């Protein structure tokens, strides 16, 4: 009595896996859930310290300029200001970076993108800090802006990093090419095909748009070091980059994870970290830095925009013979994680298909556009939009059903990727497509209710732009392949990690229980095979009995199998630990007169290996699908040829609301992956790939337009 069970339809897919009581496979609540609904969870932006100052960054208004002079006197004179720092004040290393050390902590004589940090202020009120930053006098001399491949690789192009000393510098075709990766398989030069389709595609810049802004609280410590509480994805990578900048030994740069309000890749790079620590060490006071949304848009890396050119050749019965592709990614002013993004785009560039002959090339450019780095599905998202559009084009050329064409070429376990890597785990590509195709279609004209027209179900919604005239339905499919790793920040690993440790302990499985071993060793006891034993080998109790309901706070250590870099010339190599697959079917209603799109349903099927926490797995697929929808029809950071961002706010950069995201029915397969603990496989990234091409395919079907770029905007549909 008392608790009403959830009504039917609220719980789908394995909410209670039989035989999984208390462990892997059972849906569980997030350990931080209650704190988050009561407002008690401490995000990094909620942290405070007595006596703390507020930090502020002054950023470049230019995409490319020389700094002629910099005067901080007026800013320093403002009452309440405690410090103003510039490049000249840096105590040690002046540059940092995830893969290349190419990013200045504060600009020296040159800024390479809009929003590049130029000076720092610490003051007693955020408004004082903002005003002081505006009083720093900087004289810029604008330089020509490198904004695309043509301007980056022209014979007289300004070289953005003339003193490159990174390990790729000697191997790139132009100093403004960050990194280039070909992938060659078979004999693409001589391969011939009965049917050939070609296409050029464009993917716009997009933002991760996590909601919790970049935040850090740096507290100077008695030992001359600093304690930094920060929202980040990679504490250890942060520390590795920070210590040289601060001129401190790593052990005196202590990082604590502050509450993270979403990440999606954008917290892999440093944001407030170095700046807050520098101000704290300089002033001897705790310093808090929190970006507002405008600064967040300019202060973190985005998803690489891309131009992609593909040629697909197939037999008359729809078997792929060859794929030739070229993917140009814009890294913007700094490298960030571009080599990894290039590697993904090249190695996953033909998609989840068997292709005998392949010539792929991916590269990233240095430009004066906003820096780009990691975002969910990095590199693979851009490629998937293009190769799936090509598959639809090929289906039209062959007069074949697009799902049937994909099925005939679908990758399966035992096949070989263009990199030479054998797929040695389940790859149910054809089955995933079948699952989404076989779902019943949602009813047509959903705005027609018994009482008349519900405008909320129309494209355009409550804007009352139509009553249902000019609306055409379309259905489209997409499927993608993504590599996956093992890290918190993408896949709800904090919950899964605790679940796995607790599950294995309860079942008394053997360790290693490194942390617990230390504790139990104190009284002379040891943990052996999940049991507490005396030095003479006498078993006292199982660990499960000892722990009872106690929270498990330690995680297992697991090393995934090693991967290797791709060969520089051929792209051959065992480069990926695991692959992940997801398929989508999108149903759209398009107002073809006004160019308005309503996604009516977005069905997904995905293999997650093993759902450690089914509710979290579903949430990852739903969230990833919604972000794919954003790229399809809403989200783009608009950057002009001047390198300046036109829409750095949630007023202009639109992320999907609950009105934009439709019902998303799921089919989840759990085909255990033999090379991972519990057969698990990361679930969060693959759905971000295939949702976008499925939606655009559906819009193409409705409009008969080629639609070669995302996001699709109303003017692309109306030709206005």
């Amino acid at each position, binding site marked *: *009595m*008392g*608790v*009403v069970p*959830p*009504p039917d339809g*609220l719980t789908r897919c394995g909410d209670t896996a039989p035989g999984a009581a208390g462990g892997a496979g059972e*849906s569980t*609540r*997030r350990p931080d*859930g*209650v704190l*988050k*609904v*009561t*407002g*008690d*969870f*401490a*995000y990094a*932006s*909620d942290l*405070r310290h007595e006596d703390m100052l507020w930090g502020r960054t002054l950023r470049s208004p230019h995409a490319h300029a020389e700094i002629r002079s910099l005067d901080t006197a007026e800013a320093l004179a403002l009452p309440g200001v405690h410090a103003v720092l510039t490049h000249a004040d840096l105590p040690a290393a002046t540059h940092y970076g995830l893969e290349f050390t190419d990013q200045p902590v504060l600009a020296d004589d040159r800024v390479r993108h809009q929003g590049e940090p130029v000076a720092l202020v610490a003051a007693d*009120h955020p*408004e004082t800090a903002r005003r002081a930053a505006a009083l720093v006098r900087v004289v810029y001399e604008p330089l020509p802006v490198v904004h695309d491949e043509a301007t980056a690789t022209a014979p007289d192009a300004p070289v953005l990093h003339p003193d490159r000393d990174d390990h790729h510098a000697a191997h790139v075709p132009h100093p403004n090419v960050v990194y280039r990766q070909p992938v060659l398989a078979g004999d693409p030069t001589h391969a011939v095909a009965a049917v050939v389709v070609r296409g050029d595609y464009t993917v716009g810049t997009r933002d991760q*748009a*996590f*909601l*919790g*802004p970049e935040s850090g609280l740096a507290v100077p410590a008695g030992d001359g070091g600093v304690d930094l509480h920060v929202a980040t994805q990679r504490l250890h990578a942060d520390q590795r980059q920070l210590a040289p900048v601060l001129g401190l030994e790593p052990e005196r740069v202590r990082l604590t994870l502050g509450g*993270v*309000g*979403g*990440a999606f890749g954008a917290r892999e790079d440093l944001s407030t970290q170095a700046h807050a620590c520098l101000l704290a060490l300089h002033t001897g006071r705790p310093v808090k830095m*929190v970006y*507002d*949304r405008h600064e967040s848009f300019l202060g973190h890396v985005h998803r690489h925009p891309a131009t992609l050119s593909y040629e697909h050749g197939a037999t008359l019965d729809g078997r792929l013979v060859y794929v030739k592709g070229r993917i140009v990614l814009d890294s913007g002013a700094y490298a960030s994680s571009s080599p990894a993004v290039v590697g993904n785009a090249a190695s996953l560039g033909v998609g989840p298909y068997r292709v005998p002959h392949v010539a792929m090339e991916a590269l990233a450019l240095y430009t004066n556009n906003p820096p780009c780095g990691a975002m969910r599905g990095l590199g693979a998202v851009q490629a998937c939009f293009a190769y799936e559009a090509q598959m639809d084009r090929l289906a039209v050329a062959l007069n074949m059903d697009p799902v049937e064409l994909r099925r005939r070429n679908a990758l399966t376990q035992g096949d070989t990727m263009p990199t030479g890597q054998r797929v040695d785990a389940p790859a149910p590509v054809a089955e995933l497509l079948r699952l989404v195709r076989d779902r019943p279609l949602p009813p047509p004209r959903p705005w027609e209710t018994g009482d008349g027209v*519900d405008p*909320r*179900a129309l494209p355009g919604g*409550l804007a009352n732009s139509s009553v249902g005239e000019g609306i055409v339905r379309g259905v489209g499919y997409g499927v993608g392949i993504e590599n996956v790793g093992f890290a918190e920040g993408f896949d*709800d690993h904090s919950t899964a990690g605790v679940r796995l440790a607790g599950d294995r302990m309860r079942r008394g499985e053997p360790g290693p229980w490194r942390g617990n071993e230390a504790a139990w060793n104190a009284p002379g006891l040891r943990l052996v095979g999940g049991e507490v034993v005396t030095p003479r080998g006498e078993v006292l109790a199982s660990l499960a009995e000892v722990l009872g309901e106690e929270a498990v706070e330690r995680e297992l250590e697991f090393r995934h199998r090693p991967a290797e870099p791709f060969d520089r010339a051929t792209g051959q190599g065992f480069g990926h630990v695991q692959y992940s697959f997801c398929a989508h079917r999108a149903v759209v209603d398009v107002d073809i007169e006004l160019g308005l799109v309503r996604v009516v349903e977005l069905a997904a099927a995905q293999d997650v290996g093993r759902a450690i926490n089914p*509710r*979290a797995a579903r*949430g990852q697929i*739903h*969230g*990833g699908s*919604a*972000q794919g929808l954003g790229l399809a029809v809403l989200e783009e950071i608009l950057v002009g040829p001047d390198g300046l961002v036109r829409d750095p*706010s*949630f*007023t202009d950069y639109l*992320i999907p*609301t*609950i*009105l934009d*995201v439709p*019902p*998303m029915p799921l089919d989840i397969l759990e085909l255990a992956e033999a090379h991972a603990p519990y057969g698990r496989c990361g679930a969060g990234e693959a759905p971000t790939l295939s949702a976008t091409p499925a939606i655009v395919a559906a819009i193409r079907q409705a409009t008969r337009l080629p639609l070669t770029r995302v996001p699709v905007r109303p003017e692309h549909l109306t030709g206005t």
Partner: protein
Amino acid sequence: MRVTLTVNGRERSADHVWEGESLLYVLRERLGLPGSKNACGQGECGSCTVRLDGDLVCSCLVAAGQAEGCEVRTVEGLADADGRLAPIQAAFVETGAVRCGFCTPGLLLAAEELLARVERPADADIREALAGNLCRCTGYESVLDAVRLAAARATAPAADPERRP
């Protein structure tokens, strides 16, 4: 200036408030109530949603002085005095509607207001009511589940007065 207001049933005042400060800033930085979140600062994301004399507002868009003498309800006031979660809070935890959680406080306030107004909201009603609250993690499916669950419990015929809002 000094601002005095009633927050979650308690009279509170803040001194030395600069005229440009928002209600959100005063709640978070001066009254020790950081549950309301600041994600956009311009009324687009709904993370800072509170009730101001009963109305849903983006507290980042309300000047602190405008809240003088008003009743404010924030996420910190949803659970009862003994710390028992409100039905909408429990439903959010149970359905997985809480992920990174940054949007959660605002969504809870908006959902609570909807359920007080509409006993059995259709999905279209829920979507309309929550359209001002951005969430980047969930794709909203579990948020819909949570509101449906809380609505079903509130209107269930079973005698369980403590589950009623």
